[in-house]
């Protein structure tokens, strides 16, 4: 008997196609309709906690199939930005748009703008996948149960149906063999891959990753990045807060440098990493490398 918990190398080989053929088809069709269409867009987003202004007017957009990496020192507002985009926090000012439609508020055009009630926010959130630094798997559910929960409780799928879909998704992230394991019985890398499957199974329009490898032991980072890179290759729209420069170079087509609640600089990975214009970006990138 081998140790059931750690077998990252073996698991890694099983990473297959992550996206539904149907979903890909849909995306290709949408792409030919308007190749420059923004899936997720933030404009002039402001957010403060008490007296601290964490976001001071952040604007950026992600096109369909694009992968955008967000860099920046801790406290620069990266995580807060992601939480606002995922509708986990209301913005104080500015707009968030998904597929061109303003989300998170009601009474959008002209009149008073108020946050949506939690019940309606929940609906909108289900179209945005979120992966957390600390995985946040539900400890009382198996890997399969974690992936099934959204399908059953949000999408209203039948248990048997959800079981089937969730199992396929776990196989795709290379964890078919681990479906009956509880989170406490999985390695960090395996837990994060379950968390990715949990978000992915909802067929989100965009996936947000909040430092997905920062809480992992170094030897487990690779298996999570491999899944994410596969996802990027298959055309998933992604926003990734990360310190993994190599990943950003390989998988991202845009890099955003944030500091003190604003976007300092935006460009291709090459522009940001090899010839950064901003002095602070330069220092930050040097420190990373």
């Amino acid at each position: 008997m081998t140790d059931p918990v750690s077998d990252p190398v073996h698991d890694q080989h099983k990473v297959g196609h992550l996206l539904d053929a149907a979903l890909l088809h849909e995306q290709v069709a949408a792409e030919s309709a308007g190749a420059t269409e923004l899936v997720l867009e933030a404009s002039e987003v402001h957010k403060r906690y008490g007296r601290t202004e964490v976001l001071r007017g952040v604007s950026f957009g992600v096109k369909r199939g694009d992968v955008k990496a967000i860099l920046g020192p801790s406290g620069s507002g990266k995580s807060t930005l992601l939480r606002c985009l995922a509708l986990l926090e209301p913005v104080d000012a500015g707009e968030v748009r998904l597929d061109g439609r303003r989300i998170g508020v009601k009474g959008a055009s002209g009149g008073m703008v108020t946050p949506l009630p939690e019940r309606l926010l929940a609906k909108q959130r289900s179209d945005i996948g979120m992966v957390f630094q600390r995985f946040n798997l539900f400890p009382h559910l198996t890997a399969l149960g974690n992936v099934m929960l959204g399908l059953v409780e949000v999408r209203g799928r039948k248990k048997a149906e959800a079981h089937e879909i969730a199992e396929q998704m776990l196989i795709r992230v290379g964890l078919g063999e681990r479906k009956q394991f509880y989170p406490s019985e999985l390695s960090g890398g395996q837990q994060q891959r379950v968390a990715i499957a949990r978000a992915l199974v909802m067929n989100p329009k965009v996936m947000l990753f909040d430092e997905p490898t920062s809480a992992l032991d170094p030897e487990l980072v690779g298996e999570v990045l491999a899944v994410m890179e596969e996802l990027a290759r298959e055309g998933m729209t992604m926003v990734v807060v990360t310190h993994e420069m190599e990943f950003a170079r390989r998988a991202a087509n845009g890099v955003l440098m944030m500091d003190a609640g604003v976007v300092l600089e935006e460009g291709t990975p090459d522009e940001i990493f090899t010839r950064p214009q901003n002095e602070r970006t330069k220092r930050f990138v040097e420190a990373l490398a």
Partner: protein
Amino acid sequence: MDFRFDIFFQALTNPALQQGAKETVLLTIVAMIFGLALGLFVALMRDSASRLLRGFAWIYVWFFRGVPTLVLLLIVWSGLPQLFPAFSDKWFSQFFAASIALSLNEAAYASEIFRSGLLAVDEGQRVAARALGLAPRKVFSRVILPQVVRVTIPPLSNDLITMLKLTSLAAFISERELLANTRTAVALNFRSMEYYLAAAVYYLVMVSILMIVQAWIERRFRWTSHREKGRGGLIRQLAPMR
């Protein structure tokens, strides 16, 4: 040494003691059910946004945890009829009065347990459940509650055992539970040691059954894929008894 085993065994099979034990179990169950329900309410009030509700919950816990259970029992049984004649009627039985007093008392302790249980659930759980798109009620019932239940099983089981023993206080208001019936028997035959020891055996048997049930429930909440492995909750529970 004056201890007669034949009288002890008589006491063990005494129908009045058996009847009293049934009454004890019934009183425990009723007081626990109402106490836990009320306790969950008080716990949610203590974390509510309303200052008024928070204040009310704080006063509730302060009062019912501070007043000795026996005093509370006497206030309900003897005090209430003095204030309100309606409580002198037949429907206001000793069982009823004891249920009220013990529930009020239990709710004060249970609310603190539920509150610590709610605090013990990592904030990331709520965030992840919301991010997935779960409606607020489902965030609570599918993600938060199962985790609260798990951490509150041991302290609530402790409360249950305490409650079983606390019901003996109801003997003071002549509720015919195990202790009251034992005292009646002793008054007739003056065999204190044999009869009180028999009552003690009854309590021990009931508590042991509760511990077995607790261990079984804890096993169900272990959240591992191989339940048969490792030392079970039962062994851990029974260890201090050996």
